[in-house]
């Protein structure tokens, strides 16, 4: 009984602001509301529509491709930075650690606006360097890489801190033993450090998979300055947002959101299943 009381503050917030809206959104997703027809019960029709909607499917395909490129990129940057910083103890290392982390402390919206200016073909630095032939990184051909760059910049620092913290948790006596056995710094990194922080790496991977599949802020912010190459259905989340708040299709938007939730859940479950032997954090 007392236990429930202690749980109450969390439970109230949890029910009110997470479970409640979820249930309501699911309820909404079971109806259709045509402009000319009014509201009608539709069962799961919105879901069958979602999974045959080319806009939704191409959005899912986009974030899947995006995840395949961006997650290894940002994990590699984070891992290398953390390993280097872990083996240094100078004043410079502390400064670098802070600087690498700073992009994460910048709100995603501000970061996206900032990159929008940097990419600008009229007054961005690329224009100053290359003049007329400067590439526009948000053009249809370059968009993928333009966004990859922004997201890697934003998140690598955060993952670096997680990896770095895990590295700091390793008993230094192990390194000493390795050195006595004649291991080089390179070997210590690949044979000892990386295997010992594999749990942290799996954790990051799960965060990154969930985050990337729900990709929203950067495309939404850069949409108005992309000359049309970022569409309102570029990712499932952007699609759901625009369906609801621009096109007034709240019911279908709810179904899209739930459909995305299903995709993310399956993705994460498959991933955890594949890494179940090493991943220590969800047992």
């Amino acid at each position: 009984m007392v236990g429930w009381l202690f749980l109450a503050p969390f439970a109230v917030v949890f029910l009110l602001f997470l479970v409640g809206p979820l249930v309501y959104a699911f309820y909404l997703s079971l109806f259709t509301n045509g402009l000319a027809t009014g509201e009608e019960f539709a069962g799961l029709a919105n879901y069958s529509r979602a999974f045959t909607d080319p806009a939704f499917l191409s959005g899912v395909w986009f974030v899947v491709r995006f995840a395949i490129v961006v997650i290894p990129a940002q994990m590699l940057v984070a891992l290398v930075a953390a390993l280097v910083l872990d083996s240094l103890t100078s004043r410079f290392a502390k400064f670098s650690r802070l600087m690498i982390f700073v992009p994460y402390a910048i709100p995603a919206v501000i970061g996206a606006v900032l990159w929008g200016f940097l990419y600008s073909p009229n007054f961005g630095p690329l224009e100053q360097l290359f003049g007329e032939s400067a590439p526009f990184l948000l053009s249809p051909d370059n968009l993928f890489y333009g966004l990859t760059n922004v997201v890697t910049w934003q998140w690598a620092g955060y993952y670096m801190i997680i990896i770095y913290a895990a590295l700091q948790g390793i008993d230094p006596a192990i390194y000493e033993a390795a050195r006595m056995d004649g291991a080089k710094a390179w070997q210590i990194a690949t044979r000892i450090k990386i295997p010992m922080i594999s749990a942290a790496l799996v954790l990051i991977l799960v965060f990154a998979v969930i985050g990337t599949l729900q990709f929203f802020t950067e495309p939404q912010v850069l949409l108005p300055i992309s000359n049309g190459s970022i569409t309102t259905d570029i990712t499932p989340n952007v699609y759901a947002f625009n369906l609801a708040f621009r096109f007034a299709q709240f019911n279908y938007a709810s179904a899209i959101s739930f459909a995305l939730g299903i995709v993310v859940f399956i993705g994460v479950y498959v991933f955890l299943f594949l890494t179940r032997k090493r991943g220590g954090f969800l047992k």
Partner: protein
Amino acid sequence: MNKKIMTALFGAGTVMTSLTACGGGGDGEAAASGGGGGSCSVPIANADAPVVSVWAWYPNMKTVVENFNDTHTDVQVCLTNAGQGADEYAKFQTAVSAGRGAPDVIMLETDTVPVFALQEALVDLSEHGASEVEGNFGEGAWRDVSSGDAVYGIPIDGGPMAMMYRQDVFDQYGITPPTTWDEYRAAAEELKAAGGPLMGDLPANVPAPTVALMQQNGAEPWTYDSANPTELEIDLNSPESKEVLDYWAGLVEDGLIGTQDQFTTEYISGAINGDYATYISAAWAPGYLTGAGAGEGADAGTWRVAPLPQWDPANPVSVNWGGSVLAVTSQAEDPELAAQVAMELYADEPSLTDGWTSQTIFPLNQSVLNSQEFIDHQSDFFDGQTANKDVYIPAANAYEGSTYSPFGTTFYAQFTEEIAAINAGEKTGSEALDDLQAEMEAYAEQQGFTLN
């Protein structure tokens, strides 16, 4: 990680958060007040009178509401700026879907009126004496706010379209203002051959002027009557429309015009820089450009305006882009009183004069269009040219009105994608319109319309 750095990081984080909080602060007062409640951004002058809540965003709206409140004892206006254009519509749409939270009177752009009229979110003002003010407006302006016998808004301002151009560029390359679209293309080719700047621009993000240009050639993309709201005729890929869009796609393909999105810093800086010899735009564009910093620096005195080029110079057609109305929402507590506000707000002489002298609006009220002061006004932006008399007033008077899409936001978003495909060289104008027609038909059927 040591403690010091952690503190520094949290410090940085807090600063960032408070900075963004400041950035969003401007909307605070708007967000706070929903329908009737909350604070008004202009004080109520007569506390005893009933209050009508109004959402509007024009920059001189406070002056307009002060004028209204000072001269009315029977009703007062509580003004809220709920955001400009799409931001306001998103809030209004949410209020409409929720069934509460909308204001009594709302400012809408003319092409958005059918979107909300169709959802029965707006009151038919013909039942509340709208015919009394019909005479204040031209025929085209009134047709824009009407559907059959119903009237869903009272016009404030309009956007008769014209061709703004750079006199300095035209002089340098020896070009005279084109009067037909053939001449426009010829001038564009001359400019390119002489190594000059681009003739114009085809923006993907604002399809409204492109729709207007299609209508100039006789296209009627949307046909319906609010008396029969579920029956709809869509004709986006008519030969007239295709001729226009193929023309523009051809200009893009030959590198004669740009493909830059408009209402962006990119476009404005390009326009100031003289990267575009013409700007196909509406009567409110000089004010918009001035507010964005054009016409003051290196480009001061270089702008002129000429009538919109024509397809058939023997039968010139005027078209309109933009402009706003005041509409009464069906959530209004007292529709009669709200209708009175919609008809009298921004309709008094001091407000209208403030509106056009500050270049905020191009009024549609005949009292202004016929006033000698307005007719003879020499525009600073156009280097003393009497732009109203020469171009904009004749265009406004010749405008015959049009029918806008009943799902304009979806239509514009889809059209944006099609124009982006044209600009990327993936589709011709005809292909884009065929695709657009198919998409809009599918959408309309899925929304429960019967297609004729």
